[in-house]
């Protein structure tokens, strides 16, 4: 009976039965799931305090967003007549619809924050040096894609918040010289946010941007292995490489010099003691399951406690007072608004500074930094290395300035874009009844 059950079990679950040991060995070699992670992972890269597991958390958020997003797609209609109604349906009539939307919303806001924090971690640990510079650049593209993904999703509920945030956001983009207005026209599909915009943003949000992020994420992950694992391993590796020792007999250069460089397997374990390593399965897989559960629980708890914002239906004729960009762009809006100078009838638009100069310079700095950094390789994988104190302080200062501007924009700006302290009562805007 037991044997028969086993046979059924195998028949039902195993698509293929290896006929020889060679075939079963091949099955392991060719299995994607078994090669997602390295065979062994070092003790240092498992540390909580080094990476803070922020990249993993971002990937978990991406997974949550993809799954909840696909489920939301069953109920959402990207038309200006139905979009708002379908969100109201989700909120009030669809079973678990509100929970799904809330989790999607909070995971999306979280992903923007976590992706940025991940970048900050990589910066503070100088983990972009040497061969990792390419992966840093991929990371910069992933950050931009995440911002764009969140921005395109912002419009979809088609409420006042969505409509005016996209109006403000794309107006900032239009400040770029020469190409600005064209970019805005291309994004909006016209001069105003309308049906064309909604459809464009929807297609970008549910297909092109997620596809781009998933592909780049896969490459980003692969490059981590290709570049020799986390940068925290570098200090140990450098020391050990000084003492030549025989490679284990089982290791070989798999490509036999046909391509430049070394294979993944060689690079990832080179110079590391066997005693410092643990099998990736189950140590790493269990840890990733743990990080996923923490992230999932956090987003679910937020979804249970707080509703995603949803205002009245989009109305191009009535501008909310104040109209704000999404929080991650509100620092640019703050720059645009507070650097606009008026002298009598003459207005010097802050759009050039906030909409063009600052974001372009910051982006250029991000891209160029790995190539400008002249500190020694000994800093690699070290939190706040003394030698890089000035670099780290610069990054921290810029980040804090952005955070301060976001705080002002989100919490302190009230009607007519006036500043109000958190506890100051704000004027109530006139209503109809």
């Amino acid at each position: 009976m037991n044997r028969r059950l086993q046979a059924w079990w195998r028949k039902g679950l195993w698509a293929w039965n290896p006929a020889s040991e060679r075939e079963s060995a091949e099955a392991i070699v060719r299995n994607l799931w078994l090669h997602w992670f390295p065979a062994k992972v070092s003790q240092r890269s498992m540390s909580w305090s080094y990476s803070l597991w922020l990249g993993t958390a971002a990937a978990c958020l991406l997974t949550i967003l993809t799954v909840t997003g696909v489920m939301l797609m069953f109920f959402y209609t990207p038309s200006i007549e139905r979009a708002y109604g379908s969100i109201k349906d989700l909120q009030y009539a669809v079973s678990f619809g509100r929970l799904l939307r809330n989790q999607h919303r909070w995971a999306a806001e979280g992903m923007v924050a976590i992706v940025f924090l991940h970048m900050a971690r990589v910066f503070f640990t100088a983990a972009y040096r040497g061969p990792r510079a390419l992966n840093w650049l991929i990371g910069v593209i992933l950050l931009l894609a995440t911002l764009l993904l969140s921005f395109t999703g912002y419009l979809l509920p088609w409420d006042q918040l969505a409509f005016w945030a996209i109006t403000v956001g794309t107006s900032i983009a239009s400040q770029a010289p020469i190409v600005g207005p064209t970019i805005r026209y291309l994004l909006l599909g016209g001069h105003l946010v309308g049906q064309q915009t909604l459809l464009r943003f929807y297609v970008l949000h549910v297909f092109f941007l997620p596809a781009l992020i998933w592909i780049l994420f896969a490459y980003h992950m692969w490059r981590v292995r290709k570049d020799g694992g986390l940068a925290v391993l570098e200090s140990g590796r450098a020391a050990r490489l000084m003492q030549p020792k025989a490679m284990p007999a089982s290791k070989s250069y798999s490509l036999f010099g046909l391509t430049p460089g070394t294979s993944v397997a060689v690079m990832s374990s080179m110079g590391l003691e066997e005693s410092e390593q643990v099998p990736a399965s189950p140590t790493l897989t269990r840890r990733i399951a743990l990080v996923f559960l923490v992230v999932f629980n956090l987003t679910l708890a937020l979804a249970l406690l707080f509703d995603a914002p949803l205002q009245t239906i989009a109305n191009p004729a009535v501008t909310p007072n104040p109209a704000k960009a999404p929080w991650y762009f509100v620092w640019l809006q703050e720059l645009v608004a507070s650097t606009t100078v008026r002298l009598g009838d003459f207005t010097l638009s802050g759009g050039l500074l906030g909409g063009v100069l600052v974001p372009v310079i910051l982006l250029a700095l991000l891209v160029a930094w790995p190539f400008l950094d002249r500190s020694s390789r000994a800093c690699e994988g070290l939190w706040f290395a003394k030698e890089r104190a000035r670099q780290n302080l610069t990054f921290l200062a810029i980040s804090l300035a952005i955070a301060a501007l976001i705080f002002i924009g989100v919490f302190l700006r009230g009607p007519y874009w006036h500043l109000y302290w958190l506890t100051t009562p704000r004027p109530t805007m006139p209503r109809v009844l």
Partner: protein
Amino acid sequence: MEPLEQKFERRDFGWLFAMSILFFGLVAAGLWQEYKTAWRPYQERFRLVLAQQGQLRQARSFSVGIQQIWIPDLGVVDRCVTCHLGYDYMGVLPADLAQPLTPHPLPALIHHHGFNRFGCTPCHGGQGWATETTAAHDPGDSWNDPMLTPRLAASYQMTVGELLQMRCNFCHRQEQTTPGMDAINLAKQLYQTKKCAVCHMVDGRGGHSAPELTYEGDVNPELLDFSHLKGPHTLFNWEYQHFIAASALLPTTAMPDYGMTPPQARAMTLLMLSWKHLTYPPQYIPAPPPNHSP
């Protein structure tokens, strides 16, 4: 010394276990939130009331769940009836049944304005999509069409019946008099006797020397001058004070003070707020009287 692998297992396993327990707890909370809706107790009580009132067949066939009146022509989805279940049991269930199960109090009105044609919110306002008390009645920022409640009416010294006439006039706009719409009828009469059309344009008729009033109900209140206004900063109050004494509200205005009484000024305000840009299908607009000249 403890092997590395076991160290990681020992450290992570406890957290994994705790997080799994938390996960099941949160999923259970989600299920509970989904089950424990505000409307469920009302529906269970309604089934009991039906049985007590001898409506055994209805009580048996009543199934618990969200109910709605959907009128695609008006873009209306009214889930009010998820809680207000007795609405069309006029004459069957006692009229003094406690809310939200009370039958509609005006059967004669409903005779001409069937629920399946008009729903609830076209007359009462409020958020029809919502299935929660606050979101439906007092939605705040999430809905810009507040429900016309007795409390809101009282804040403007009116009955809810008078305040509702504003919305009756969405369809009855072109009629000179309509039974049951005393306040609006009075305002339309005042509009004629005070000769408003000499200066103001409405529906393509009237003068050009003052602002057009065709869609006065859609005016964005943020664009008005409230600096001389007493009381709440609302469009209603602004219009009301404007009819009481225009010069006090806007010192430079060319509009004369007509010395209207408060009921007259309230009636005029209701008329102004009823003039909105609405796209109701033609079958909802009453036919003009035989002697009507366009």
